[in-house]
């Protein structure tokens, strides 16, 4: 299935441009979600919380320092989701994002479909925004998959009911689910920041695999830099530093301090790298 094929729409019959933009977005999202490897990624992601839940069910972590989240699983199934998110956020989610975002521009260029795509009466800016929004949808979809699969397995194997927060106080199940959705949103925003870097890289090359690898390499390099305490001067500038900063959501009283900081950092990444991608994509010569 070629990329151009899926949006073969007659320009005249397309109606007003906003509607065309909406259709373009839907077609982009459809392309991402229909791709076989992306579906496989989602299946794999759904398997991660299932593995965690089953493992904890078979051998509950005992001992003093099992960690707050995984230690809570046996008391409430919702913590399977939280634990699984902590597991996937540093490496797995960036990988999934890199695979999709690397494809966006470089993939079309590689297939030779980019120039046909530009014939559609949609400006390059709008095209880029649409592609980025589709990637944003993908970020949210991956994080949601992990969370929902975690809830399913967690509630199947472990008790439900009141959720013990990190501060030792309890909140209702609804409160717990609300906090889980905040974490999912936060994870998606963090991934959007990485996606913005990937989008820029994707506009630089016509080889999608290079864009994927480069995006992932950048994400992992940042992780390594964050792990080295001697480099703490640069840590505030690295998005990896903020990936797991949603701990404050699980405290009582709820605090958004850490979260706000992380969100601002993510928005800064999106702002800088999307504008870089825009400057590159709208000025670049498209010959393929």
């Amino acid at each position, binding site marked *: 299935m070629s990329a151009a094929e899926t949006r073969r729409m007659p320009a005249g019959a397309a109606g007003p441009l906003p509607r065309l933009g909406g259709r373009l977005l839907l077609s982009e999202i459809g392309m991402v979600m229909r791709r076989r490897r992306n579906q496989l990624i989602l299946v794999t992601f759904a398997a991660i919380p299932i593995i965690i839940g089953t493992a904890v069910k078979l051998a509950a972590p005992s*001992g*003093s*320092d*099992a*960690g*707050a*989240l995984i*230690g*809570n699983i046996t*008391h409430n199934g919702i913590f399977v989701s939280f634990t699984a998110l*902590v597991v996937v956020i*540093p490496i797995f989610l960036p990988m999934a994002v890199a695979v999709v975002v690397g494809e966006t521009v470089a993939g079309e260029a590689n297939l030779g479909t980019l*120039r046909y795509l*530009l014939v559609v009466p949609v400006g*390059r800016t709008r095209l880029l925004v649409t592609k980025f929004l589709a990637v944003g949808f993908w970020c949210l979809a991956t994080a949601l998959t992990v969370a929902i699969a975690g809830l399913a397995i967690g509630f199947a194997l472990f008790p439900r*009911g*009141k959720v*013990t927060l*990190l*501060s*030792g*106080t*309890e909140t209702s199940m609804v409160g717990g689910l609300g906090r889980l959705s905040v974490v999912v949103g936060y994870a998606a925003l963090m991934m959007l920041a990485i996606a913005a870097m990937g989008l820029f890289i994707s506009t630089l090359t016509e080889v999608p695999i290079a864009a994927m690898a480069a995006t992932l390499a950048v994400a992992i390099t940042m992780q390594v830099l964050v*792990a*080295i*305490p*001697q480099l*703490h001067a640069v840590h*505030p*500038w690295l998005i990896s530093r903020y990936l*797991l*900063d949603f*701990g*404050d959501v*699980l*405290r009582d*009283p709820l*605090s958004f*301090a850490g979260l706000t900081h992380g969100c*601002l950092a993510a928005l*800064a990444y999106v*702002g*800088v*790298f999307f*504008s*870089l991608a*825009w*400057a590159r994509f*709208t*000025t670049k*010569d*498209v*010959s393929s």
Partner: protein
Amino acid sequence: MSRSCPVLLRIGSGPLRLRTGRGNDPVGMSVAPPFSSSSEPSPLRASVSASTRRRALRWLAPVGAVGVVALVASGVLSADAKPNLPRQTAAQLLASVGDSKVAGFSGTVVSKSSLGLPELPQLGGSNSSAGVLGMLTGSHTARVWYGGETKQRVALLDSLGEQDVFRNGRDVWQWNSDNRTATHSLLPADAGQSTPTMVPTLTPDQAAQQALRLIDPSTTVNTDRTGTVAGRSTYTLVLTPKDARSRVGSVRISVDGKTRVPLSVQVFSRNSDRAAIDVSFTRVDFAVPDDDFFTFRPPTGVVPEETPLGGTANGMRSGSLAAPSSGGNVTTIGKGWTTIAKVTGVPSIAALGKQDGQATALLGSLPRVSGTWGTGRLFTSTLLTALITDDGRAYVGPVDPDLLYKAAVGK
């Protein structure tokens, strides 16, 4: 067809084209209207240069984005106006700090220590504060609530964990999220304002009180320029020890201009201009917190442990500003800025090896020293020195090693 569309024009090397275009047709750029290239082919080159230039301008967008981020991050936009506080002498300031009384406050405290201990990479992603080593290095965040002398709460935050101490009246609860344990103790009925410090952290308030206690003839007190801490205008007190044997170069205390509560304490060593210890509020609110903040109910499924108070985690307090006063097997030698803490019953390296491999490796790497007092290992840093003798004593203080040896001779 690709040649007919302006966006598809090959622009290869932008700046170069721009220059040649301008050279051939100096008026081209001003004449060429926007988007004219496809409709008017004749001044094509001029318009190419113009649109090339216009496109090159697009790179200003990311530059602008970087600029905005840098501005926001550096705090230029949110910088508070210069503090405008009436002048105060050091003595006035000291007095007002001494009898500053607030009904309550809540806030976030960040403590940073760089005592010269090696910082170890943490690949797990979690920033565990557990253990003495963890407390002595790096940066730690705590949220504090204070609602009067008998109502306090301190929450020491890990990235995905928390240790809490709740005090409400006579009840003291400790909570550790990592192993889901709740410990309850009952204070004696006459317990006054002694704050439970099982959680190894000091609020700037407590740290400042410790430092002010050391003020006697051995200290010079000055004021420095006013500053801003946690968004509030502050006075700055500078305490400088006169005793040159102390490794403490100076202690800077930022005092809130309105309430006179210390909001930050920085300890500088004699030979470094980077604070060795920095305990500061990053956010503070002087509204009295609700009673809810101080009550703790153990979550379902957690059986609270009843313990008498005292003796818990004494060793963890060694990260505090001055020597721990007393308690357990800790005694102090000397006074003022050269106070040395003596700890007896320290496990030997071999015994420690069974518990904490990291600490053993660290201790084993310390240089061996010996003298009339025996043999042991010496740890030196810009601020603290410690002598651990082979027969199970330890001497710790912000002093030169000679003083530690002298103390060790005295046993």
